[in-house]
Structure formats: structure tokens, C-alpha cells
């Protein structure tokens, strides 16, 4: 019997970039197949070919042994392919259900959109993962995690023969992942072939049987996950051994940032804490607990309704990002595409945006200096490919993230706020970013890391604040740090009693 | 009324010269009490239409009839002008004087006013085909007069150029045609360019510059209005050809007079908007009083050059007197 899905000699060339060369592998019906690789390895490009968004330069896709022409997304859907895209592909002004049925709406008398029916079916599809999402709500009113769940729900609607998931859990919490895992298992039982892309190896090991590993656009190998260790897979991905690094603290006793009674008009209430020089402070909590909002207050992006902030003992007013930047605070935001990058501008220009004053001391930009600093900072964050004049939108997410970190390094920021710093970022780059954060701390920077990945928090943080409902529910020192402890404080008591949602994962 | 032939104000046979009004219809009649008149014209951004309004006002004051004078916001605002005119019908004026943007944009007014039993007088420029009453000059004649000047004063002939108003506008079409036909028939002249100036000074300046550069031996320009002519004058001066190229405009606005006196603009065809306004309101009120006027009342125009500028630019009554003399003399 021929496999459900087969890639045969797929190549894809973009001007100046060969994203895929001669990629071949297959996925059987009922198989959950992991697709692994570093940022820029070509995973998304391959899946975009599968879903008809790109056309391959060479090679073909076979479904159930027959070659299929996937010239556009409609053809791909007709061929039985459903896809969850890495970047959320949604229309904020349409409702959840309208987004899920976009392009193939249910109709009455083939004239009117059958709204009710769409909403009913949408609710059904969403129920498996998050029953609280209202299918009639405008998509724009949802949080990122919920929007990602909507994307998943959309793929489930199609009753496809092949479901491709490109980092479906990048914004999800462990408990949401568990429900997704059940859904995926059910799909597999029904004979669907699932291609699953994730940078979270534990997820891949948890649900996939086999995995294909890619590097720089070529297949390095396909493995049976029951037979190999995570370490072996990682070394296939990055082409070298990744040293297992231990947490090292560089915190001093000197208080750099002191926050007292900080509150926002909506989500944050009475938050107080200190941040020391050289310290990495983790902030954990459930989605919606107000972590992003807290960081935005500190970055001056939103205005606080009350509270006081001191830096090095001096009161500062943070009424705009400019104020915050002047005070030495910089935010690496959660939604890179929306809040981070200026897509048409180059890496250098994106990097220099926050420190124009430095690069243009006399009003005119010193481009030689800018180039030099860009080269230096980008080398430090290990940008790949190392093309400083290329528009940033053409880079993978991890490399965009590196450019934004570089932005704050260039601006001489002393307090760095990371919101989900490794969302959508591969193990190699993740290790690099962890390393970078530690180096920054060692140099005397103070860092706050908001993350939904508990292993990440534990790996990085000298101390952890757990937020719940907009306030600090607990402060945990390294000694008392564990996933259990964090979860216990993050989750409202009632839910714990119901025995739900335990962090389940092994360490990084 | 449907049996009325579409009006061509330039050729209509049922017409009378303004100077004949008193002779044929007697002194100004007594009006019903409380008579008030409403008027709408193209735009106040052009002095011509403001002067027309002054004429309305001065005659209104003279016979103690209040007159409301409105105008659209710009020359192209067709529906806005219709809205204004409809407002005037609704408000119960005894007579309407309208100077439409185009030949048809005020057509509904004719019908609405008829239903309300209000006479409508079409004053100058665009001509509503269904209009029962028209007061104004002969548009074509503007061009003809300038052409005649060239024929008389440049007996050797030569190259001439036309700068037209907005494409498709009645006055522009007629004036251009009058000039072109007359001067071509004379035989010795060559119309080397006839290009749009869009009633715009800058566009005309640029067009004239280009034409002069291509035809440095040009002997004259005719422009469809004075604003454009004044732009051309500047282009001619910039090209250093002011002694060789004659420039004519149309309308007789005060700036044109000033320029003629200064020896820059060669001439303009004045259609005496103030006087036109007076005549128009007089005719309209005679209609209100029940007199049966011919369909067209022709208003005066005259070619103004440096020689005669003073004769036509005095106070209202002096001009009236001069024009009555002209009329009596038959030109």
C-alpha cells in the first residue's frame, strides 16, 4: 500500500535562497509524523508547498500514491490537505466562526451564509480544546492562545486526509497541549496522516511515532522516535552536540528596578517587586494572568493607573516607550510580527530603530557606524543568514527575534523585558538565546522573562514571580523552584481540586 | 413646455436687444407687493459672477426688490447647484435667475418652477434647452470679435493660438468656435494650436510657454477667459515677446482692464456682467409684472483695448450710456 503522503525530490528556490533541496519522505495513514529542524531549516516552506501557498521549483507531492497538483490553497483543500499555519492567518474583524469557514462558508440556498450552523459546527470543533471560545465573538477580541486554538479548530473542520500543523502550540499552555494531543490521537485513529512541526521536542516525543529531521533545506534523516534519544535528535538538527547548560546566577544585591503598587486600568492590580542588577527574574502564570500587560506597563507601552517605579533609586515616569527606553528599559514583545518588526526594512534598520540618536549624533545617520554596530551585534546574536541589508520579513522567526534583541543591545538597554522569548524558536537558537540572556545578566543587565514554558523559566530564572489574576500570587526563590510549585500558585484553588492541568514535562 | 424648441441663445430668432427693452415695453412696471427674487450662479470664485450679483443687487435696490444671490462651491459642482436652486424654489421666490453649470444640470428647476408658477430666467453661459427666458450675450460673438480685431489689425495674417476653457463647457466651445471659424475664413491666418487651459492660469501659462517655444513667430493668443489670458501674458513676457504677440481674453474682469491699461494684455471682450445682471433682473421682474418678453434678451459686449478702455470702465451709469450709444450706432 502506498503511503498517505509522500514528498518526492521537492526543491524550492527563492531569489538568493535555496530553501529546500531534494526533500523526500513519506507519512502513512494514521501516522503522526514529526518534522524537526532549526529555524530556517525549511519546515514551513515544505508545508506551504503542501498546502498550495508555494509551488515547488522541482519535485512532486503524492497523496495515496497519486501525484497531486497543489497550485493554490483551494486545490490543496480539495486534495484533502488541512493546514495550521505558523503565522496566524486570520481576519480580526470577522467572527471566530466566519474565520474558521472562510473560503468555504456553509450556505443556505447557496446564497446566504448559514451563520448559526457555522457557529454550531465551529463550537463543536473548538469544544475538544477550549469550550470557552465563543464562535460568534470577533476574532480580534481573542487572545493569541485562543486564536491559535481557532486555527486548530479550523483544520479539524475540514475532515481532511492530511493535517499539517506548523507549530500549533507556540502560544498554548501545557494543559491546552494535552487536549490537543488527544485530538491529534483521535485524528490518527481515524486514519488521518498528521505532520507535526514543533520546536518543543518533548511534545514531539510525546505524540509522534516517527520524525523527519531537516537542516538547511535538506533531510538529514527520518527516525523512529521510540528508538532514539532526544539528545541524538538535537544533534541531528543542529549538526553538533548541544552542551547541557546549568543555571548560573549573576544577581547582585544592588536594586536596579523597584516597582511598588503598579496597576493598569484593566488587568494588573497592585504589583510590587524588586529587580536586582545582574538578575534574571522569571514571571510565570496562566494565560490572561496579566504578564504581558505588566511588561507593557514597564515598557511604557501602556499607561499605569497607579503605582511607582524607581530605577537605581530614582523615580521614573514611564508614560511612553521613549521614556522607558531613556530609562534603560527595552521590551522584546510577544507578537513579533505585529509589535516587533518593520517588515520592509532591513535587519540593520530594524536594529537601529530604537537608538537613532546614537547613530545620528549630529542629525545625520552615520551609516558606517551603523553597519559596524549591526555587524557586531548580529554576530553576537548569531544571525543566520548573515545578510544585514535583507528585509527582516524574509528571515525566520528566530532570526527576527535575534535582531530585536540586537536592537536593545545597540540601544544600551540595561533592563530587558522578554515576553515569551523563545516562542517559535528552535532548540539551537533557544540555547543561544538562553546563553545570551545569561551573558547579559553576567554583564550587569537586569532581565525579566515572561514565559509559559515552565522548563524555560526554571532554566533561566534566579527568582520567579507567579502571577494570578493580575497580581503577584507568590515569589519563589531558586531553592523552592519547581514546576509543581509554580503551577500550584498559578492555578486558582478550585481547579487544582478538580485535579486538572498539571505541568507534565521533563526538564529542558 | 414640450413644444418649445430647444433653445440656442446664439441663434434664437425671438430676441430683443437690451437697449430696446424700454422702447418696446415701456417704463419699468409696478410689481405686486412683496415681490422677491432668487438667483443662483456658477461660482463666486470668478469675478464675472460676483459682478453679475452686483448687477442684480443694484437693480434690486433701485426698484426695492430683495434679491437672494447664491452660487455653487466650485465651477464643477453640478448637483450642489441643483440643490441650491431647489432650495430657492421651495422658499417661494417670485422669480428665479439661474446661471447653470451645464446645459442640463438645472433642468428639473424649469419643471419644478413651472409647477410652482415661478418664471425662470436663464442668465448667460450654459443654456438650458427648455428655458423659456434667456438673458445674456452671444457667446460665439466673443470669439468673433477678437478674430475681427486680428483681421483688421494684422492684415498680413500669421499664426495664432487658442487656449480653451474646460473641455465640453458651452461657453468654451462657442467662443473657441467663433474665433476659429471667423479667423480661418479670413484666409491669411493659421490656427497652430487650440489646447485646453481648463480656466486655470497656471495651465495656460505652461501651455503658452510651450506654444511660443514651438512657434516663436506667433502673432496672437485668444483665451476663453481673462484669468487664462493673464497667465498667457506672463508667459509671453517671460519669453520676451510682448511686443510681437497680441493676447486677448474674455469677460472684462477688472484685472484685465488693469493689464490692458498697463499695456500688457492687448484686449478682452467685456460682456459687462454688472449691466447684464441689471438687465436680467429687470427682464425677470417685467415677467413677474406680466409682460410678454421675447425668449432672448441680448446683453451687450464690446472689445476692449487700450484705446477704449476708459470709455467702458467708468461708474455703472456711464458705461450704460456708452453702451446705449454703441447700440444706437449699431455695433
Amino acid at each position: 500500500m502506498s503511503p498517505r503522503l509522500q514528498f518526492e525530490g521537492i526543491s524550492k528556490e527563492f531569489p538568493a535562497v535555496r530553501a529546500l533541496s531534494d526533500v523526500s519522505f513519506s507519512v502513512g495513514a494514521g501516522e503522526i509524523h514529526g518534522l524537526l529542524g532549526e529555524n530556517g531549516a525549511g519546515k514551513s516552506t515544505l508545508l506551504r508547498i503542501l498546502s498550495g501557498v508555494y509551488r515547488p521549483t522541482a519535485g512532486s507531492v503524492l497523496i495515496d500514491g497519486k501525484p497531486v497538483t497543489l497550485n493554490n490553497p483551494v486545490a490543496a483543500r480539495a486534495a484533502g490537505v488541512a493546514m495550521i499555519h505558523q503565522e496566524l492567518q486570520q481576519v480580526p474583524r470577522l467572527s471566530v466562526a466566519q474565520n474558521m469557514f472562510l473560503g468555504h462558508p456553509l450556505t443556505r440556498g447557496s446564497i446566504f451564509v448559514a451563520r448559526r450552523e457555522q457557529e454550531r459546527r465551529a463550537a463543536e470543533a473548538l469544544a475538544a480544546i477550549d469550550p470557552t471560545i465563543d464562535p460568534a465573538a470577533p476574532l480580534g477580541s481573542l487572545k493569541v492562545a485562543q486564536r491559535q486554538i481557532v486555527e486548530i479548530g479550523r483544520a479539524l473542520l475540514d475532515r481532511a486526509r492530511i493535517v499539517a500543523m506548523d507549530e500549533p502550540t507556540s502560544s498554548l499552555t501545557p494543559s491546552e497541549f494535552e487536549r490537543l494531543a488527544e485530538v491529534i490521537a483521535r485524528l490518527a485513529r481515524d486514519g488521518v496522516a498528521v505532520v507535526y512541526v514543533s520546536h518543543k521536542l518533548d511534545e514531539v516525543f510525546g505524540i509522534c511515532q516517527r520524525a523527519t529531521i531537516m537542516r538547511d533545506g535538506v533531510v538529514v534523516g527520518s527516525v523512529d522516535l521510540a528508538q532514539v534519544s532526544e539528545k541524538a535528535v538535537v544533534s541531528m538538527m543542529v549538526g553538533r552536540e548541544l552542551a547541557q547548560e546549568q543555571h548560573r546566577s549573576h544577581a547582585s544585591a544592588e536594586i536596579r528596578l523597584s516597582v511598588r503598587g503598579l496597576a493598569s486600568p484593566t488587568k494588573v492590580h497592585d504589583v510590587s517587586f524588586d529587580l536586582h542588577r545582574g538578575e534574571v527574574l522569571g514571571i510565570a502564570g496562566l494565560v490572561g494572568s496579566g504578564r504581558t500587560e505588566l511588561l507593557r506597563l514597564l515598557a511604557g507601552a501602556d499607561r499605569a493607573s497607579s503605582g511607582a517605579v524607581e530605577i537605581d533609586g530614582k523615580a521614573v515616569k514611564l508614560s511612553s516607550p521613549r521614556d522607558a527606553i531613556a530609562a534603560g528599559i527595552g521590551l522584546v514583545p510577544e507578537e513579533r510580527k505585529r509589535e516587533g518588526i518593520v517588515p520592509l526594512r532591513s535587519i540593520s534598520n530594524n536594529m537601529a530603530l530604537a537608538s537613532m540618536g546614537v547613530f545620528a549624533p549630529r542629525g545625520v545617520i552615520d551609516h558606517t557606524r551603523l553597519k559596524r554596530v549591526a555587524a557586531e551585534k548580529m554576530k553576537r546574536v548569531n544571525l543566520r543568514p548573515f545578510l544585514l541589508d535583507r528585509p527582516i520579513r524574509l528571515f525566520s522567526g528566530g532570526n527576527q527575534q535575534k535582531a530585536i534583541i540586537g536592537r536593545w543591545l545597540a540601544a544600551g538597554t540595561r533592563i530587558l523585558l522578554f515576553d515569551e522569548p523563545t516562542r517559535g524558536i528552535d532548540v539551537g537558537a533557544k540555547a543561544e538565546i538562553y546563553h545570551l540572556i545569561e551573558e547579559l545578566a553576567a554583564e550587569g543587565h537586569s532581565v525579566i522573562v515572561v514565559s509559559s514554558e515552565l522548563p524555560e523559566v526554571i532554566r533561566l530564572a534566579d527568582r520567579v514571580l507567579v502571577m494570578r489574576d493580575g497580581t503577584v500570587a507568590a515569589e519563589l526563590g531558586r531553592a523552592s523552584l519547581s514546576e509543581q510549585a509554580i503551577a500550584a500558585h498559578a492555578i486558582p484553588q478550585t481547579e487544582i481540586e478538580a485535579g486538572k492541568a498539571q505541568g507534565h514535562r521533563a526538564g529542558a | 413646455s414640450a413644444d418649445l424648441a430647444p433653445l440656442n441663445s446664439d441663434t434664437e430668432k425671438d430676441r430683443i436687444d437690451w437697449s430696446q427693452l424700454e422702447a418696446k415695453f415701456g417704463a419699468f412696471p409696478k410689481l405686486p407687493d412683496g415681490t422677491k427674487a432668487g438667483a443662483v450662479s456658477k461660482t463666486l470664485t470668478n469675478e464675472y459672477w460676483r459682478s453679475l450679483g452686483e448687477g442684480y443687487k443694484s437693480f434690486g435696490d433701485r426698484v426695492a426688490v430683495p434679491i437672494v444671490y447664491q452660487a455653487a462651491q466650485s465651477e464643477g459642482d453640478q448637483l450642489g447647484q441643483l440643490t441650491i436652486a431647489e432650495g430657492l424654489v421651495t422658499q417661494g421666490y417670485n422669480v428665479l435667475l439661474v446661471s447653470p453649470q451645464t446645459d442640463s444640470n438645472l433642468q428639473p428647476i424649469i419643471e419644478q418652477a413651472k409647477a410652482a408658477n415661478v418664471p425662470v430666467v436663464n442668465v448667460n453661459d450654459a443654456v438650458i434647452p427648455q428655458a423659456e427666458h434667456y438673458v445674456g450675450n452671444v457667446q460665439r460673438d466673443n470669439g468673433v470679435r477678437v478674430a475681427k480685431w486680428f483681421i483688421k489689425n494684422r492684415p498680413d495674417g500669421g499664426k495664432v493660438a487658442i487656449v480653451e476653457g474646460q473641455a465640453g463647457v458651452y461657453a468654451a466651445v462657442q467662443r473657441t468656435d467663433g474665433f476659429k471659424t471667423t479667423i480661418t475664413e479670413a484666409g491669411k491666418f493659421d490656427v497652430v494650436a487650440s489646447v485646453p487651459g481648463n480656466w486655470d492660469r497656471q495651465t495656460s501659462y505652461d501651455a503658452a510657454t510651450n506654444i511660443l517655444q514651438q512657434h516663436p513667430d506667433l502673432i496672437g493668443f485668444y483665451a476663453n477667459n481673462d484669468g487664462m489670458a493673464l497667465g498667457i501674458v506672463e508667459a509671453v513676457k517671460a519669453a520676451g515677446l510682448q511686443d510681437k504677440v497680441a493676447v486677448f481674453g474674455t469677460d472684462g474682469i477688472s484685472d484685465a482692464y488693469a493689464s490692458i491699461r498697463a499695456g500688457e494684455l492687448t484686449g478682452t471682450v467685456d460682456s459687462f456682467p454688472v449691466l447684464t445682471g441689471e438687465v436680467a433682473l429687470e427682464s425677470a421682474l417685467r415677467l413677474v409684472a406680466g409682460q410678454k418678453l421675447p425668449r432672448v434678451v441680448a446683453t451687450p459686449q464690446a472689445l476692449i483695448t487700450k484705446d477704449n478702455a476708459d470709455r467702458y470702465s467708468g461708474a455703472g451709469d456711464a458705461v450704460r450710456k456708452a453702451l446705449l450709444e454703441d447700440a444706437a450706432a449699431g455695433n
Partner: protein
Amino acid sequence: MTDITQHTAARPRADFLHRFSVRDAGTLIGLVVILAVFGALVPGFFAERNLINILQQSSINACLALGMTLVIISGGIDLSVGPTAALSAVISASMLVAGVPFPLAIAAGFAIGLACGLLNGVLVAYVGLQPFIVTLGTLSTYRALALIYTGGNPVLGLPAGFRAIFNGSLFGLPLAVVIVAVVALIAWIILKKTPFGEYLLAVGGNEEAAYIAGVPIARTKIAAYMISGLLAALAAQILIGRLGAAEPILGNLWELDAIAAAAIGGASLMGGKGSVVGTILGAVILGSMRNGLTLMNVQSFYQLLATGLIILAAMLIDRVTRGRG
């Protein structure tokens, strides 16, 4: 920088339908304020006859603005509506004058409107040119064609029967008003109830997402321009019915009024957003303003001033009433 902070970040996110109607309520309040002011200043402003006048005078702009709204929602703009209307008008009119049966002549006018829209749409959707510049180009082109076709002369003498079609009245309302009301209802249904309406919002809201979801981008955009062309042609028929003549220079500057109505009504020129109800209210705001200023006998320079200030005021009132958002 206070405002910016608020503006870009802490934006309240209310319920979808709720939000939409809040936006329309803002426009409605704008209208009510303007009506109240004129009502207080102008005796007889609220007379039934005058209110009907306002509706009638707003109807042509409303008709165009509905098409414009759909185009704007799709992320485009149509500057060529006036010349499209002119071309459609002169062609219908010359057929009518030549004795062609009414339905055929009207159909020909509509076909011209659709064809003009099709060309705009193809240049935007398939060739990938910018809507503003495409329709700026066709603005001149279509106008020139109308002028060339007629030699610059108006087409006069439309048959009375034809004129009666558009000059009748129904339930005491001028037929033009009724027709535009029906068009508005259809546009509302299209936008709210049909897949095409969703496609418009999706294409204007996030073209890439729409493409990936399988929305026929090009066809959706082209259809929007064709509807705009069709409604321009309809406006042309209404107008020539009213005027009894068709001129090649008809429809000058119509695009600005139509865009203003759509924008006052809440359409975003960035695409993905717009409301049929809002657009109609916007057209009526502009219509009442013209009407009121005329009745007040405001001199034209001051009318122009008032036009500008009222457009700004309508946007401000709307902005204030619905908060920032």
C-alpha cells in the same frame, strides 16, 4: 504622547455586533446634531417636503457611496465613479434618443458601468496596480471617452416615458429614494449575509489570510469594482431621468462626496471595515448640510468653509461618542 498610548494599545475590545452598531450610533448622533442645529436655525427645515428634498438630494450620492463602501472595504478606492456615470449616461441617453426601447437602453448603460468596473478591477486584481492610481487613470480615460463619444455636447430630449420611470413616487417618496433604499438593503444583505460580503471583509482585512483560506481574491476585488461601476450607472440613470439630458461632463467630483459619505459612515480607507447603514447616514449628513446651508442663504465661500468644518466635525463627534477606536 498620551493619546497615542491609549490609541495603539489599551484599546477596549467590545463585542462585534455591538461595536458595529456603536459605530453607526456615532454617525447617527452626528446626523442628529446637524439636523438639530439646522432645525433651530432654519424655519421650515423639518417640513415634510424639505425632508423629502434632503433624501432625494442625497440619493445619488448615497447610491455611489454604497458601491464605494464595498470597494473601500475590499481595500481599494474608486475615483472613476463620476466619469463612469457620465459614460453610462451619454450612451443610454443617445440610445433612448435614437428610439431604442427603454429596457435595452438602460441595460446598455448598466453594461457600460459594469465594463468600467471590470477594467478597474482587472488592473487592480490581476495586474496588481494600486487602486488609487488605476482609478485616477481611468477617471481621465472614461471622461475623455464620454466627451469624444458626444463631441462634448449634451444629449438632449430624453423620452418622457423614460423620465417618468425615475421621476415617479411610491408611498409618497420619490422613486429615486425608494430605489436607493432597495439598493442599500441589498448591499446590507450582501455585506452581512453572503459569502461575498465575508470575502470583501476578509480581502480588505487580511489579504494574505484570505488567500490562504481559499478566498478568490481577484474575483472578489473585481466584483467590488463592478458593483461600484453598476451603481454609478444606476446613479446616472436616475440623474438623467431627473435632468432630461445626459452630459459628458456629468458626475464631476462625485468621487469625493461618495468617499466622504463612506468615511463619515465608518469605512476605513485601509480596508476591511465599513458599514452600509453608516454610509447611508453619511450621505444624508452631507445632503442635509447642503440643504440647510442653502436655506440659510449662506454665501458660497462660507458654505465651502462649513462643508469642510462639518466633515471634520462629523468625524470628531463620531470619534468622541464611540470613544477611541
